[in-house]
């Protein structure tokens, strides 16, 4: 049982990190912190792909005559794309947060929703 847990520990760490990121997104009200939580959620998924690709006793997938066993290069390629897409979405999200701050004066989610719920004209945005 313990051997099974130890050999699957990377999956469980990935699940813990993903759930922690999800918790930050749904339970915290500050928009910047939500974006950081979303980034943590995205980053933890990389572990799900890179864990099975590794072979102990092998090396990085750069072919050389001195080595015979290599790690699987295919998940590396997928995760490279995922990292760059992640930073693109983070940058777009932060641009939206900056515009929200300028329109509502705050980046707390409940304040923004409260201002939205008020009838128009009562509280003019700055």
């Amino acid at each position, binding site marked *: 049982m313990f051997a099974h847990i130890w050999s699957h520990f990377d999956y469980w760490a990935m699940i813990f990190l993903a759930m922690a990121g999800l918790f930050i997104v749904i339970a915290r009200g500050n928009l910047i912190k939500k974006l950081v939580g979303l980034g943590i959620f995205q980053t933890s998924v990389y572990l799900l792909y890179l864990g099975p690709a590794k072979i102990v006793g092998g090396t990085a997938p750069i072919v050389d005559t001195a080595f015979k066993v290599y790690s699987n290069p295919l998940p590396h390629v997928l995760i490279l794309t995922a990292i760059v897409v992640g930073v*693109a979405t983070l940058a777009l999200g932060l641009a939206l947060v900056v515009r929200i701050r300028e329109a509502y004066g705050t980046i707390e989610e409940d304040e923004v929703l409260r201002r939205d719920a008020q009838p128009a004209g009562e509280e003019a945005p700055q």
Partner: protein
Amino acid sequence: MTRDMVLRVVAKLLIPFILLFALYVQFHGDFGPGGGFQAGVVFAAAMVFYAVIYGLDNARRVLPDWLVESMIAAGVLLYLGVGFAGLMLGGNFLDYFVLDPDPVAGQHRGIFWVEAGVAITVSGVMLKIFYLFAGRGTDGEQ
């Protein structure tokens, strides 16, 4: 930041090496870890470093806005250009074997230009985002 002598001197010493490292990562991506994305980000990091130490206006003088915006589009166009070159030389879209009489040399050529396109776009986007974020607080303060 420009008044701090230590920061300015260290920046002057480091920035050329960071730019050189970006070029190294770009061109040695075939033989070691590296490639277009990493090189683009390292190049943008060197320019961000310069902007933080010497001021955003000086950075805008080195890489003006129109140049950075052109870089964003030029990388994607270069990538598509390699694809269409494969089409026009008789192969499929993004076929590298037809780019040269020797197929392996054609692969080398295709990978080189494709990675260059990726690096140009990535460095342009990262730098433009920094310009927009850093330049927003200063002009037109509400």
